[in-house]
């Protein structure tokens, strides 16, 4: 059975802040009191980046953190194309039409050690998870990978202060040199580790493979292309290794994800 369609809402959000925090990476604060109350880590919003037809479809973004009392929520986005360029042009006071929250949140695993493995703007849902569980920060380790120092935001402003953080960059310009996935083994506690990951597809595939070697549970927040975000277009298909019936071979990132069991899908 396909899961139920989420009971999402539409809200016109007002931009309160929209500034670069690294090269081509922006932080946007939106005043959206109804969405701010409803969102969880790895859930996403479908944002109409432009009120005309270009781009035509909404763009999905996850939430970094939300202040339910003040009614705002923060996003971080990487400017890679038309939609994100439109977002970067938004000024304070502008509004954006949003539907959400969509998708299922990350659950914080009960294991003694939770490795949060982030690549680039994949940092967002993992940061939200940490913000949501101040009492469990000592069980978590945040591994952050970026291409280079210029593309690395000041993480201290984005993560809870007590969360252990290890940074790697591909070129060694900040933190340790290398790939974030190379740091997993040294922080994993045999038999007591769960991995949660979000980032470029190939990075997450590597995390899943390492988790399999460690025999550790692993959950990934996928960022596949999608058209609607609420199960109507059945476009954001992800293939499963095993399935009860042919129509369950592909499942939908928007409805059954974006968080998936990384060991169950075809990477």
């Amino acid at each position: 059975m396909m899961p139920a369609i989420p009971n999402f809402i539409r809200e016109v959000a007002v931009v309160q802040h929209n500034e670069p925090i690294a090269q081509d990476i922006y932080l946007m604060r939106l005043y959206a009191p109804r969405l701010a109350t409803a969102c969880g880590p790895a859930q996403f919003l479908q944002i109409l980046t432009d009120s005309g037809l270009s781009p035509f479809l909404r763009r999905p973004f996850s939430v970094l953190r939300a202040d339910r009392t003040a009614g705002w929520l923060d996003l971080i986005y990487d400017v890679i194309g038309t939609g994100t360029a439109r977002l970067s042009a938004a000024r304070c006071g502008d509004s954006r039409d949003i539907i959400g929250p969509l998708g299922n949140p990350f659950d914080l695993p009960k294991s003694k050690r939770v490795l949060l493995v982030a690549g680039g703007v994949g940092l967002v849902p993992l940061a939200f998870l940490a913000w949501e569980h101040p009492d469990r920060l000592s069980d978590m380790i945040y591994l952050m990978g970026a291409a280079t120092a210029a593309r690395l935001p000041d993480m201290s402003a984005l993560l809870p202060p007590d969360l252990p953080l290890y940074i790697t960059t591909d070129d060694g310009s900040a933190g340790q040199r290398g790939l974030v996935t190379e740091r997993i083994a040294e922080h994993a506690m045999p038999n007591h580790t769960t991995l949660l990951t979000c980032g470029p597809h190939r990075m997450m595939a590597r995390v899943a493979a390492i988790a399999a070697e460690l025999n550790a549970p692993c959950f990934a927040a996928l960022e596949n292309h999608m058209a609607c975000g609420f199960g109507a277009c059945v476009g954001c298909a992800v293939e499963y290794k095993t399935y009860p019936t042919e129509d369950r071979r592909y499942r939908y990132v928007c409805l059954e994800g974006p968080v998936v069991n990384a060991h169950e899908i075809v990477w």
Partner: protein
Amino acid sequence: MTIEHPDLSTKIAEGLILRNPVMMASGTFGHGAEYACLFDLGKIGGLVTKTITRHPRAGNPPPRTVETPAGMLNAIGLTNPGIDAFIAEKIPPLTALNTACIVSIAGTSDLEFADMAARFNDLEGIAALELNISSPNMKDGGMLFGCSERAAHNVTRVVKAVSQLPIIVKLTPNVTDIAAIAAAVEEGGADGIALINTLLGMAIDIDARRPILGNITGGLSGPAIKPVALAMVWKVANRVSVPVIGMGGIATARDAIEFLVAGASAIQVGTTTFVHPFAALEVLNGIANYCKTHQIDRISDLIGNMHPPA
């Protein structure tokens, strides 16, 4: 003087009158009932469920969609649970809805279409069947039927012979003369004609020099296709006497009214729902307001009522 309550009811097939002309298009609103949480489906005229086939289908490998100027390409590949699971699981919640539910079916042969159609004879709560003879994403059937007058005629006739439900046939725009296909389908006994399905299209990633869609080609939909759809609806409505249901890129009430004026007895909202989930309601309100301000008592007075060019 303004009209308080225009009569929006419209006949979309022999034996089927909807409370208003706004419907949800097949493949863009799931199996219908699961979206009852979005808005009161009792407000719209009707909905068409996602096309089902005899056997369950996984659908095409991703990527399945790609955005294009003012629209999108899709190559979903008719993913569906198959007719048995559909009847067992999807029909009961569907029949509980307070709107006309039309079931879309696709087969790989005349016989399979007929066998599938016959399964709905004894089921309560289904308003009509829509024969999808127009899917560009089904290699072993689909559009093959919709591209030949003879094949389109035959499949309609064979289904009509066994089915007790009104039969709406959905046409593909990927033909030379859509009015000729429509005429063949009408002669085959169709009670209504729906058009258009998606236009065959393609997109290429020039960096990788690869097609973007996993299936290489797909179907184009959305505002980009509206003028094409409108001309086809106008041509078909002028050719046949059964009701015509128009669709293709409808995003606003203005778009919908163009189709009605061109001769469509009802319209379907498809791709727009992906971007604006509540668009169908806005289209409906816009049509009602238009009727009020233009002193149109009955929507039937608007349908096909186009003045000659200035």
